[in-house]
């Protein structure tokens, strides 16, 4: 039986991620845990999170999990979601500057206050709601999901990897930003697949079946 660990470090709604994984593949064993051994023992790892990056990094440090995340991101199929995506980068502008895990080179930037859409209307921050994702690079997580499908976003910061080529999906919010990135066994999305109805569930199913 496939085991998937959902990293529980006190940052947000893990139950919906666990429930969604269970729903798309009833045979999968979903372990919600903050224990190093559980995370290392799982075949796949989901790293979710909402909130502020500094709290996230502090919560990982309190549980001694930073190195665990770095280790599993090296060889297991690994899915970062929202803050769990941003934490993979080296540095974020959030909270006056916060260091991330540095698994992927690059930075996390804040949406500027003065962004406008094509009609000139001021864009709200946080970027909240259903927006389209352009599948800029083919990837197993896009299987069976139409290009330009809408996913549910809620965030004020976005990742800017040092190599834009790791971006596999782009979303327009006052300009394109990477909504999905992938490198080797790591894939990460800014939107919430567990809250994005049937195509979000499809993406989670694809992740569970992904052969790296």
């Amino acid at each position, binding site marked *: 039986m496939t085991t998937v660990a959902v990293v529980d470090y006190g940052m*947000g*709604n893990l*139950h*919906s991620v666990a*429930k*969604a994984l269970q*729903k798309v593949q009833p045979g999968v064993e979903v372990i919600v845990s903050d224990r190093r051994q559980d995370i290392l023992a799982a075949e796949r790892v989901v790293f979710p999170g*909402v*909130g*502020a990056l500094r*709290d996230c990094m502090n919560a990982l440090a309190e549980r001694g999990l930073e190195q665990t995340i770095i280790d599993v991101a090296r060889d297991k199929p690994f899915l970062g979601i929202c803050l769990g995506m941003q934490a993979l980068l080296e540095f974020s502008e959030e909270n006056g500057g916060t260091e991330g895990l540095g698994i992927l080179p690059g930075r996390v930037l804040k949406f500027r*206050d003065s962004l406008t*859409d*094509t009609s000139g209307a*001021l*864009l*709200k*921050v*946080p*970027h*909240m*709601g*259903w*927006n*389209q994702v352009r599948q800029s690079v083919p990837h197993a997580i896009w299987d069976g999901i139409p290009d*330009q499908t*809408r996913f*549910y976003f*809620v*965030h*004020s910061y976005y990742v800017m990897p040092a190599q834009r080529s790791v971006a596999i999906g782009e979303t*327009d*919010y006052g300009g394109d930003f990477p909504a999905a990135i992938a490198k080797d066994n790591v894939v990460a999305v800014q939107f*919430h697949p*567990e*809250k*994005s*109805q049937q195509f*979000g*569930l499809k993406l989670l199913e694809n992740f569970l079946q992904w052969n790296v």
Partner: protein
Amino acid sequence: MALAKRIIPCLDVDKGRVVKGVRFVGIRDAGDPVEIARRYDEQGADELVFLDITASHEARETLLHVVKDVASQVFIPLTVGGGVRTLDDIRVLLSAGADKVAINTAAVARPEFVKEAAERFGSQCIVLAMDAKQVSGVGEPKRWEIFTHGGRKSTGLDAVEWARRMTAFGAGEILLTSMDRDGTRDGFDVDLTRAVSAAVSVPVIASGGVGSLDHLVDGVVKGRADAVLAASIFHFGDFTVAQAKARMRQAGIEVRL
């Protein structure tokens, strides 16, 4: 291509049942919350809002069961409000499966609560719910104030100022209800919606008064709302969420189909 405007059915929950009143009186039973949530999800609802209108201790337990059941079957964002007074209330709702919580009266009683909640759980899950009523007379510049207790109790707080202050304290979204329009089916107070939406940088959900699909269009086009909330037009089968989206798209509004 842009961010879609959201359609959000609202479920007022009383002792585990969905109800809908007119101006908070004359409550009518509208059914089982889990069943209704599933139906709206199938119709393409972008989010769901649950408001616990009893908020007694026993009703709280019932509500948590409802949230748990819905969250395990419906994979779209859920906002839960009604009687949220402490950080622990928020923690319990989030761990039951809510994605956001709406704070109303507790923010009026102690505004710092919103700041503490946003710092602890993140702005993305703190929705400031505000009930506003027009207080200006005919011929005066329009002005609205915040009311509590189902619109019976005035607070003297200016609605636009309140929205600004609460977003400065970290509220990530505003659920704005016109108490003049709630339950009337006369349409949103679009002047109120526009005034609040223009004053804050966070998304604003227009609420109160929807009686037709054109009212939803007006909320976005005239009120500049980021999302529109309605209850009775969906509960009693007048329209489906899919019909609402089709009408909005016809009017040139970006929606998720």
